[in-house]
């Protein structure tokens, strides 16, 4: 068991609380840096996807996990980023500028979507983002002069300052740098007054408002930041896939993003990464065990949907804190051995927080 003696107020907001953090995250960083030499090309590609999805997950986590607004149209932001990047890169714009534009345009679209969020909340907001997602998908499919319509669009390899990143390793490092950058940005944001305001809005809008938090400004800001991260992820996704078409940014993609953060653990930065690992490795795991199942189960086209659905149900019912919550429990068990009590993480039975007005 580790006891942290606080001698300074700055300790409260330190990113690394103690030596253990520094050691383990340092080790993880070394492992990630050495990954191109340790793993085969296929696994490196999967790792790149995990990083890309984590960036999108961080954005959605900021919105859903920390601000308490949930979006059923997040794939649309991903798509806006991806298409911006595709169009600009193909026009010969260097990578950093294109990426900034992708993030900026996504953020601008996020601002627009965030505007109804000021007036509507809860389920209405969910429907508004859902509707928005459908409309954007249709725009991608119909605006053929720019997006190539349903036929999709190819995208060239990223290029900056005369340096072409066309190898898998180079692109992996690019994703790694951006993922680490976004994580640090989110961590910093969350310990700043803005981040605290987001969390306050999540916990109670009314009390946040009475503490002097401008709801409209912070909600729109949250939408914009979240959309910007999704846009960055979309841009990287476009480069990784080298080909994008509207159906990659459909409602199913939005739901997969939500599934990712719920499984990872709503309201934790770790959750975005754990969820991304889950989302990418699950189809692989299914493919592995497929051969050992009876034919009518193993070869059925709906198998993946069933597994995703059941996993989602199981997590909401039994582990609402997600994979990260499970890890916290295991860690607490080990740290306090043998004093772990069953009720330590028990969910409080509370009266439903009602949105009703009478």
């Amino acid at each position, binding site marked *: 068991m580790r006891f942290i003696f606080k001698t300074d107020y700055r300790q409260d907001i330190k990113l690394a609380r103690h030596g253990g953090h520094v050691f383990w995250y340092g080790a993880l960083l070394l492992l990630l840096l050495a990954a191109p030499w340790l793993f085969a090309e296929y696994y490196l590609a999967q790792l790149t996807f995990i990083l890309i999805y984590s960036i999108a997950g961080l954005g959605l986590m900021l919105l*859903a996990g920390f601000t*308490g607004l*949930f979006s059923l149209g997040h794939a649309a932001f991903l798509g806006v980023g991806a298409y911006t990047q595709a169009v600009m890169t193909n026009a010969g714009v260097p990578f950093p500028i294109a990426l900034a534009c992708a993030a900026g345009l996504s953020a601008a679209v996020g601002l627009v979507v965030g505007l*109804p969020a000021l*007036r*509507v909340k*809860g*389920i*209405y907001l*969910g*429907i*508004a983002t*859902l*509707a*928005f997602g*459908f*409309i954007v998908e*249709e725009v991608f*499919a*119909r605006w053929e002069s720019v997006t190539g319509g349903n036929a999709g669009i190819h995208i060239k390899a990223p290029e900056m300052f005369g340096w072409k990143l066309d190898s898998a390793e180079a692109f992996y490092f690019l994703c790694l740098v951006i993922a680490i950058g976004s994580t640090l940005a989110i961590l910093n944001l969350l310990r700043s007054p803005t981040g605290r305001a987001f969390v306050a809005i999540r916990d109670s809008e*009314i*009390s946040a408002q009475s503490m002097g938090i401008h709801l409209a400004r912070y909600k729109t800001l949250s939408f914009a930041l979240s959309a910007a991260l999704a846009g960055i992820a979309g841009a990287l996704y476009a480069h990784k896939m080298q080909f994008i078409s509207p159906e990659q940014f459909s*409602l199913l993609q939005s*739901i997969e993003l*939500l*599934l990712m953060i*719920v499984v990872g653990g*709503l309201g934790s930065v770790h959750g975005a990464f754990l969820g991304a690992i889950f989302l990418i490795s699950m189809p692989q795991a299914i493919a592995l065990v497929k051969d050992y199942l009876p034919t*009518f*189960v193993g070869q*059925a*086209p*709906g*198998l*993946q*949907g*069933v*597994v*995703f*659905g*059941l*996993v*989602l*149900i199981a997590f*909401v*019912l039994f582990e*609402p804190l997600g994979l990260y919550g499970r890890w916290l429990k295991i860690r607490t068990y080990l740290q306090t051995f043998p004093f772990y009590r069953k009720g330590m993480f028990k*969910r409080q*039975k*509370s*009266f*439903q*927080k*009602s*949105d*009703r*007005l*009478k």
Partner: protein
Amino acid sequence: MQLLQLVISGIAQGCIYGLIALGFVLIYKATETVSFAQGELMMLGAFGGLACMTLLGFPFWLAILSSIAGMALFGVLLERLVIRPILGQPAFSIVMLTIGVGYTARGLITMIPGIGTETHTLPVPYKDMIWKVGGEASGQGALILNVEQMVVIGSTAVLCLILFALFKYSKLGIAMQAASQNQLAAYYMGIPVKRLNGLVWGLAAAVAAIAGLLLAPITFVHANMGFIGLKAFPAAVVGGFGSLPGAIVGGLIIGIVESLAGFYAPDGIKDIAAYVVVLIVLMVKPNGLFGEKLRKKV
């Protein structure tokens, strides 16, 4: 004449949206949660009817009634097993839970060998019948009424009357209204709120099954027919999420707009017309047409 024709087919489609939206609203009023599995329940209902008619060889009416009853039972069980344990958790968890239920239901149906991935027609007695109203004897300029669509409109009207009577006159319906206004107070008055919630889920599932059985002759029965549920959300929102008549009216509005947009507007607008309407309504009247505007007190 053409306009009338379009409006009528829009109304028929709108009735389906309205019925699914009715399920959303019933569940929302009772448990303050939103079920994303409603479209899939509709799909299960249609498959249930299909199984009763083709596999078990039931006569038409028996098949219809047994699939509705079966879905009602399924709804009650679903509430008991999956929804009740997490009531009181944030609405977000329940939304994710019902998305999971929908995924699982759709996946399981496609896993049935030979049946799940195919599209089927539901053998109803009124298949492909049309009525001609007015016009010349040769049929020129007549209003052609598709019996399938008329059945949809008629059944929806009857169902609405039944539901209206249920909520207005029966003890059960009044208890449901009380519980939806204030669960705690209703509980103190001796109303078994938990059991009522189960019944509401059963009712919503039964309404979804009816929608599925009505829709089946017009489109086909297939595993992805549940996606139509996503267009019922705009219907529920346009009507105001907490209002039963609003759900039907919202459905009709969405249906008619969609039908007219499909004819008069350029390609592709039809698919997103419902969502454009809902965004406009949310901008102009955030609580929907029939929603009440109240401010939450601390």
